[in-house]
């Protein structure tokens, strides 16, 4: 008897009636406000395959620009039953569990080196994951007995980061990228993987990236082992590292391995 029972194989936007396809849009055009500009805005929407397009607000911004707010109907649908999103699959453990897990399986604490690389100076996110204090009431890696951490801070060149990871015989490298203008993060991250590969050191480390515009999917694409986005909590990262380093057999799990500092 329910009014709304969406068809998962044909998901459409919803305004107030199932499958009405309603969306809101806004953008600027490099034309001063006029009926022509309004029509151009409408045609942009039509060009996106929308119908029932209404420009509900147009405003002149000066210097030959106009701003438009539109409502329209999407005509495409998505088969959500076929969406597979790459996800970090290791279960999230508690603080003590992670420490016990590591104590039981590793020859020494897991060594983690982290940095904000390139020109990125946004350290708050990485600090949230790595530092004692942690984030949203959850301790950071530094506080875990299972981890030994080096947080190199802001604007660290990829070369320095790798050198340091080698030096301390790290198990994992954590990279934070917050600035994404002109895809600078993609360039930075790709460069890091290339440098590691050139050194034939890619397999030595579990390689993790985080930041508000990072997804696990993007991370895999760029050759990382995992990616963590907005709102990540330290235990998620701790659990992932604890369990992944075992699987990957990094230094800390190898009987012979106790190099580094």
């Amino acid at each position: 008897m329910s009014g709304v029972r969406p068809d998962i194989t044909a998901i459409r936007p919803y305004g107030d009636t199932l499958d009405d396809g309603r969306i809101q849009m806004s953008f600027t055009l490099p034309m001063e406000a006029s009926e022509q500009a309004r029509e151009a805005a409408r045609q942009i929407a039509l060009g996106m395959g929308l119908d029932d397009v209404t420009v509900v607000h147009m405003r002149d911004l000066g210097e030959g620009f106009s701003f438009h707010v539109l409502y329209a109907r999407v005509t495409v649908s998505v088969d959500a039953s076929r969406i597979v999103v790459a996800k970090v699959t290791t279960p999230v453990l508690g603080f003590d569990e992670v420490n016990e897990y590591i104590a039981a399986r590793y020859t020494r604490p897991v060594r983690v080196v982290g940095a904000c690389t390139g020109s990125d100076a946004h350290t708050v996110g990485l600090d949230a994951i790595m530092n004692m204090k942690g984030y949203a009431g959850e301790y950071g890696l530094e506080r875990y007995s299972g981890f030994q951490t080096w947080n190199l801070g802001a604007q660290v060149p990829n070369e320095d980061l790798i050198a340091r990871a080698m030096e301390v015989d790290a198990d994992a490298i954590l990279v934070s990228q917050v600035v994404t203008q002109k895809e600078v993060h993609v360039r930075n991250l790709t460069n890091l993987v290339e440098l590691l590969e050139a050194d034939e050191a890619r397999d030595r480390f579990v390689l993790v990236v985080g930041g508000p515009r990072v997804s696990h999917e993007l991370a895999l694409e760029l050759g990382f082992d995992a990616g963590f986005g907005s709102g990540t909590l330290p235990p998620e990262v701790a659990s992932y590292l604890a369990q992944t380093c075992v699987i990957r057999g990094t230094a800390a799990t190898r009987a012979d391995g106790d190099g580094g500092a």
Partner: protein
Amino acid sequence: MNGIDERLRVDRSMVAACRDHARAVADGVYRMISGKTTVSVERTICRLLGIDGVDERGVPLPNVVSDYLQSESLVGDGAWYTLARITAATGCAPIDSARRIAAGQLDATRFAHIDAGHARELLDPHLVDGIARIDDARAAREELKAQYPHRSQPWLYVIVATGNIYEDTVQAKAAVAQGADIVAVIRSTAQSLLDYIPYGPTTEGFGGTYATQENFRIMRKALNESIRETGRYAQLVNYASGLCMSEIAVTGAFEGLDMMLNDSMYGILFRDINMERTFIDQHFSRMINAYADIIINTGEDNYLTTADAVDEAHTVIASQFINEAMAKRAGLPSRLMGLGHAFEIDPDREDGFLLELAHAELVRRIFPDAPIKYMPPTRHMTGNIFKGHLMNAMFNLASVLTDQSIQLLGMLTEAVHTPFIQDRALAIENARYVFTTARHLSREIRFTPDGVVQRRADQVLEETHRMLADVASTGLPAAIEAGRFAAIGRPVSGGKGASGVCETGERYLNPFADEFARRLDERREGDR
């Protein structure tokens, strides 16, 4: 309030004078309607006596009875007396009588007349049953409220309006999950002028969903689920307004609604309904609301959609005084008087927010015990949803700053379409943000003694007083005729539904009205 220093000075003696004038206005109205009833009051009595359902052609049985009364010129005797007369003659319970009338199997005019005492007695068990249904619905609400308390005021009030009651329930539940305290199901546009209540669940409506008893039940059930899921009480609202004021009031009372839109003048002004019809219907509907412990929402906000919010601010307050006086007459205590006003000043006016504060604070101070209902900007909303969202934030701030009670949330798409699910979610987010970050701001602030806010409040109160004095001297009908409210004039004897008004005869009885009045008196005694 709450022992907090007064933020604003209000001339108490002028307020008292306003109340006196409003009482005189109400007295005049009650003189006008005494000795009269309407078809919808009679249908309400039918419903209270257990008459429900539809005939073969889909006509609701209460209408079958009232049509019959009209066609046989029995409205003056009233539904109770006529049904009792039929019972006396046939032994039929009211519902059976209604069915027989529907089938054309009955000619009541042929039955013997009975005396008033007998008529009263004969249907007394049905009266007891009818009132018990209201008591039960009320008790069920009370129980839920005890278990899942209300959130603190201002309460977040949202509307759903899909036309499909099932789609409405989904949206209502989503809204409660997001933090709404109150859900109103907007009626289909045309319904206020229907002289009957549609029957059964409905899935098509226009700009809203029909108010039917079954729809009420479906939505109440859905909200009760939400209450258990969220642990917060959620209130249900509909409209006891239009040509079926009192009928919908009793339907809502049966189904456990919490609030009803209900105004003593709205139908006249905005729906061109006949004055007498409205005044009679509103009285009985309010007795029912009072007895069922349902908060009414008055409609003064509507004035400011057609008239200027600054020039006409005093008409809003004058009308609130009148609504209050009329509501008292029907036995409504202050705590059930959701007097309405609105935040409708031009956003581009310098210091407009100061004037809004003056108005809101004044209403709050004049009616300290009433759950004031504050309506959002609508008139100056445009397709600029971003600016609209900000206007709603300032509205929310005005509310929490002046201790309003019921906050009807503004939609950023007000000028575009009836609310999408995300519009409502954004509105709730807006109110929750402002109410949280400025939670106790009202305790922090005093208005400077001769500032704009204080002076504006003084001025509006004076204008209100002057207007009420005028209205008291001319009488309300003449004032309405002259377009004093909402800048809309309505002739005294014009308007829709006039033919449904009838003088009551000697045999006329409305024991429900008597019983409600008696019990409300008792309750008031108990309160002391």
